[in-house]
């Protein structure tokens, strides 16, 4: 059975602690650009926690929403890429092939979620910070776009392990770094093609909705409110 990876994010559980953000950076070799450049909008965050305020003091409510690549089925970012750097894999992931990318940044403009990031400069890791780099994830050079991959290296590893052990991938066995770190289990990852999986169950929850659903991008992330 082919997989179709998806995610459910329970906003009621999310506390905005940003553990997912930090875990993602550590897992995916997301470069840090330094405070000056970050202040100028060059920071890269494959996942971010958006914070919205409601109401006037003292009746203030805060909403947190982790936003990462929604891995849309009808992704606006893909067809606009002239070099097929951005395309859809058989398992429904929006793949980004860094080697093909020439840096038109068109995909980032087309993306309504603003979850695609551009490498404005070559990443720098002061020694010995480079020892921390994850060898399973390529380091992106200057001038390419990068974005959340649903930790595709973990997906591949999980599938390989399951295959070596002669079994199907178990639900919950594969977890992206964000879902793994999340202290409140707000992020659940799994196979949408498996009707028994936790993520399938949550995706059909009446509390569920998709981000900017009316744009017709068919995201694979369901937000539960």
């Amino acid at each position, binding site marked *: 059975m082919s997989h179709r990876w998806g995610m459910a994010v329970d906003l009621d559980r999310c506390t905005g602690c940003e553990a997912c953000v930090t875990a993602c950076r550590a897992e995916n070799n997301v470069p840090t650009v330094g405070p000056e450049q970050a202040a100028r*909008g060059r920071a890269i965050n494959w996942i971010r926690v958006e914070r919205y305020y409601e109401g006037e003091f003292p009746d203030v409510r805060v909403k947190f929403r982790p936003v990462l690549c929604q891995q849309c089925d009808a992704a606006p970012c893909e067809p606009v890429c002239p070099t097929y750097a951005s395309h859809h894999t058989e398992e429904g992931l929006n793949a980004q092939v860094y080697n093909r990318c*020439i840096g038109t940044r*068109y995909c980032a403009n087309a993306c*309504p979620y603003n979850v695609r990031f551009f490498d404005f400069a070559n990443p720098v890791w002061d020694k010995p910070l480079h020892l921390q780099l994850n060898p399973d994830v390529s380091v992106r050079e*200057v001038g390419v776009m990068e974005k959340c991959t649903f930790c595709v290296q973990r997906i591949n590893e999980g599938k390989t392990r399951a295959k070596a052990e002669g079994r199907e991938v178990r639900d919950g066995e594969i977890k992206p770094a964000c879902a793994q770190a999340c202290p409140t289990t707000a992020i659940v990852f799994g196979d949408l093609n498996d009707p028994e999986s936790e993520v399938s169950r949550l995706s059909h929850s009446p509390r569920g909705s998709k981000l900017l659903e009316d744009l017709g991008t068919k995201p694979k992330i369901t937000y539960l409110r």
Partner: protein
Amino acid sequence: MNLETKNKINDDLLRPVLHTSPWFYVIVLVLGGIIVAGLGSWMYQMSHGLVVAGIKWPVYWAFYITNFVFWIGISHAGTLISAILRLVNATWRRPVTRCAEVITVFALMIGALFPIIHLGRPWLAFYLMPYPSERGIWPNFRSPLVWDFFAISTYLTGSTLFLFLPTIPDFALMRDRTTGLRQRIYGMLSLGWQGTTKQWHRLESAMQIMAIAIVPVAVSVHTIVSFDFSMSPVPMWHSTVFGPYFVAGAIFSGIAALIVAMAVLRKVLHLEEYLHPVHFHNLGKLLLTMSLLWAYFTFVERLTVWYGNAPAEMAVFWETQTGSYAPLFWTMVFCNFVIPLPLLGIRRLRTITGTVVASSLIVVGMWLERFLIIVPSLAMKNLPYSWGFYRPQPVEIMITIATFAAMAFLYVLFSKFVPIISIWELKVGAHPRRVLTPQEEEEAQELWRVRP
């Protein structure tokens, strides 16, 4: 027309080519210096990455794409106008066509540079071309950028040929009037042109077909440039009006640029006898039409957004209307409509000075229009948390200035080496017409009366 007149035309129009004033060198040096500074900025940007530019998350397109759209728009000055005028057989077009077509070719070249300048990895720009390479993959024909590649290539090829073909007889003339190396170069460029009746006939037929073919290409080019934006689900980009809006805007800015260029040529090269007030007058009328058309499109675009009241679009709408982009927006409206309307609409004001003032404002206004289409929408996409603000950086400003200098530079060089007014077409214009309306008669006489 007698031989003396013909020779005077020859002499007048060849004078800029055959005699060089010291000012020429000064201008070339100054413009060349600015271009070198621009190239240096580009090299600096390439070596450091786009980190030196002002673009940022989420405003990933800004000055460079503005310049791209702007210059492609300017390119609609020449070939399109020249082709239309050729097709409708407007006699007054003859001194105008070449200086217009030159704008097209150079503006296209400059415009086509910007998608490369703005790339993250410009050295890989050839990935856009379909050719067998070790990469083993060809471009994605669903991408508007690939459409751009094909459209601009076609338009550039077409308009270069459209410029070159009618210049062949003038190259032949130059070949006859020069000696030595220059004669050999012009001889090569003239392709051995004799001027037999058969050649003239074939040239005229070819130009008719070219004119027919180039008009839809020109329209398609700017429509496709507008597709770069309207294909994305970005607030105020995703609009069906963008195709015609961009084409109208392109012709609008193109005519304005043409008027400015003509006025400069007229003064600098002393072409007062060939570029008459009536040319400015007629182009002014055309410009007025386009100004009204532009205002109409802008109104339609804004009205539909306002009436539709979609939240994401309204954020951008109000930001341009009353927010931080409002000064730019209203400057644009003044430059493109409010001031040009009386200048071009009142016959007494539609003088050379009047049209040039209006055109200069329109060039500025149309640049702002491109900027205002691109930046506010990107800065304020759907999720408010990700809103940003854009400020240009020195590199972007320098490269922008350098391309204006490059345009002037190329124009100066071209007018130095090629007669900027088509000599043979000018002469043909003086022939008695087989069927002339009284008005055309009057027009022709006014045009070809050589002043004492």
